[in-house]
């Protein structure tokens, strides 16, 4: 804390006394806290507290250990084991990785998936930000805000698979979109790109995952004090500068979290790729899935390990854009 004696300036007298009051309040608060602590500080109180904390965190920790940490460790282990006809045996080998390093197909696919995910993240950001902005800032009634947010969540009311499958009658050669475009005379023959193509997979994944971008953006934007936007305008910022200088910096944690969600989810995708890609499109996910299906567990495990490493790299890069610990 600054010492009042250091203070200078035109309002010295006034400032001094307010500062005194504030300091006195603070000291009083601290003293009361100390006393409260002193009364509690019996033997073993601290130990008991630690136990209580441990008890609260135990279920979550156990869950994570059994269902996340252990499986991931298993995958890493299996990736170093030897393949047998019916699965694998615990004989150490680097064969799986040797094979992967020599496989151009795998590396191209990993790079492709990485790149695709980044494109989807960027598209989700560009398309999702206006939606989140509209919901969080343009809509002023809280009731309307919640109602519209629930509507925005509508895709989650049905299963993921149904949403993916629903693309086929919509986007197929004889699908609704092609038929409509033909009827309107905009195209002379059906567009093939709408289904079973890279483009189709990208658009479908964007549609499926954009909400994971909109939701964190919405929550960050909704926290912004509207009067701070008025203050920015008041101090001479036009609407663009207000956006760049006040809104965007405060929304950054949402941008990063949303990007991580979308990146991780699309990077490991295989079901959408299977359904919308119709066997024409592959991803790292489908490669792993194929390897699992052909009982090449150690090979699949090694492929998965690199996928996870690639995801970590992506997350690491994304985290550079915002100091989440401080700003959230």
């Amino acid at each position: 804390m600054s010492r009042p004696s250091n203070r200078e300036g035109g309002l010295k007298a006034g400032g001094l006394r307010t500062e005194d009051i504030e300091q006195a309040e603070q000291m009083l608060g601290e003293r009361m806290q100390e006393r409260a602590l002193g009364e509690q500080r019996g033997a073993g109180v601290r130990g008991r507290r630690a136990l209580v904390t441990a008890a609260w965190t135990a279920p979550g920790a156990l869950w994570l250990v059994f269902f996340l940490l252990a499986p991931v460790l298993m995958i890493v282990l299996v990736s170093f084991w030897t393949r047998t006809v019916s699965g694998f045996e615990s004989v150490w080998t680097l064969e799986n990785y040797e094979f992967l390093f020599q496989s151009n197909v795998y590396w191209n696919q990993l790079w492709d998936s990485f790149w695709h995910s980044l494109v989807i993240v960027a598209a989700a950001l560009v398309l999702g930000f206006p939606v989140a902005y509209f919901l969080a800032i343009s809509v002023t009634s809280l009731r309307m805000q919640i109602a519209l947010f629930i509507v925005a969540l509508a895709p989650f009311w049905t299963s993921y698979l149904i949403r993916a499958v629903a693309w086929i009658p919509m986007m197929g050669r004889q699908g609704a979109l092609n038929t409509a475009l033909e009827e309107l005379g905009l195209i002379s023959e059906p567009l093939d790109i709408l289904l079973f193509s890279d483009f189709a997979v990208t658009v479908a994944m964007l549609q499926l995952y954009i909400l994971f971008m909109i939701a964190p953006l919405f929550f960050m934007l909704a926290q912004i004090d509207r009067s701070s936007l008025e203050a920015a305008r008041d101090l001479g910022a036009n609407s663009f500068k207000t956006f760049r200088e006040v809104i965007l910096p405060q929304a950054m944690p949402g941008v990063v979290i949303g990007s991580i969600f979308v990146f991780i989810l699309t990077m490991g995708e295989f079901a959408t790729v299977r359904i919308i890609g119709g066997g024409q499109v592959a991803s790292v996910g489908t490669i792993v899935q194929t390897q699992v299906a052909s009982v090449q567990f150690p090979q699949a495990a090694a492929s998965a390990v690199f996928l996870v490493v690639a995801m970590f790299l992506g997350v690491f890069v994304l985290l550079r854009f915002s100091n989440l610990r401080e700003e959230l």
Partner: protein
Amino acid sequence: MGREQALTHHEGAAAAAPSKPSASSGLALRSLTKRFGEDVAAVDDIDLHIEHGEYVVLLGPSGCGKTTTLRMIGGHEEPTSGDIVLDGQTLLGLPPDKRPTTTVFQHFALFPHRTVRENVEFGLKMHGLAKDARREKAQEALEMVGLREMADRKPSALSGGQQQRVALARVLVMEPKALLLDEPLGDLDRLLRLRMRVELRSLQRQTGLMFIHVTHDQEEALSVADRIVVMHEGRIEQVADPYTISTRPENVQVAAFMGDNNIFHGTITSREGERLSLEAEDVEICAIAAQDGLEVGAAAAVSVRAAAVHVDVHDESAKGPNQIACAIEVVEYLGDLVKLHLSAGGKRLLAKVAGERYPEFRGREGSTVLLSWKEEDVQALQS
């Protein structure tokens, strides 16, 4: 003085006529109206002129239109009709960033992701000032509000009073033509509020800027203002200096809102020149009033300030005009003064006497006292 101020207000009304040249300096509101929806006029045809260097307070209960008026001046709300003219030029149609006004918002509205210094520099940065010049001016402003050492902290690390000062420094650095304050002390606790209002007053004196301050707190208004504009239901009820507002309320709304006024409604029984008597709720009241329209037989209202009444504990019956016997209901001791809550035949009255007299009244609830006042302390009100 009070009459003069009232005249200024009427001149403002005349300025609404298009024939009046608009080259005058200062801020003029002309027939300013704001409607939300069809029927609700938040601000209803107000006229007001404010000079540079003047500290004006818009005072009124919530919903009286004071904040809407301020927001229209700042450009955060578009008037439905009327004009806002600053130094001869209309501000209508200009967005807030193009207006030479800045606002201190009620909840400070600091930018949480920026340091104190960056908050203060923000406006200058938006106006394209170079970094060094910016820094220097921000430093000056921070010193002015006594926050030099806090420059590198985030607003969340400051107390309410310090945040308030940052908000002030942030607008002072802009050297606006008019500084608008929207309930600036509303978020502070009482002790800090009392201190900050003195600081506001002294800042305004130092800078010589036009301050327009919105509040619902009568005491705050009296403490800081050169001139108080009392508003009620979208209209201006009275414009005058604090002393006049306090001692000579023009009408029932002002007298009631300022509080601590005893208001009597009655009928005029006689009039000789400026002296008039009225029969009001079992009391005969004599007053001196120059207003027109106070004819014998007409209904009239008068007010007597709680601080202007004399309380006699040894006398129990009224013997003439401007006297009334009351029962003490509650004795409220406030240190410097004692508030006596009284009742006379169902009518509630209030008297304020010096704190030293508290022993006379302690424990005297239920006993009868005689209230009296001088005729020059009776203020005739327009209804």
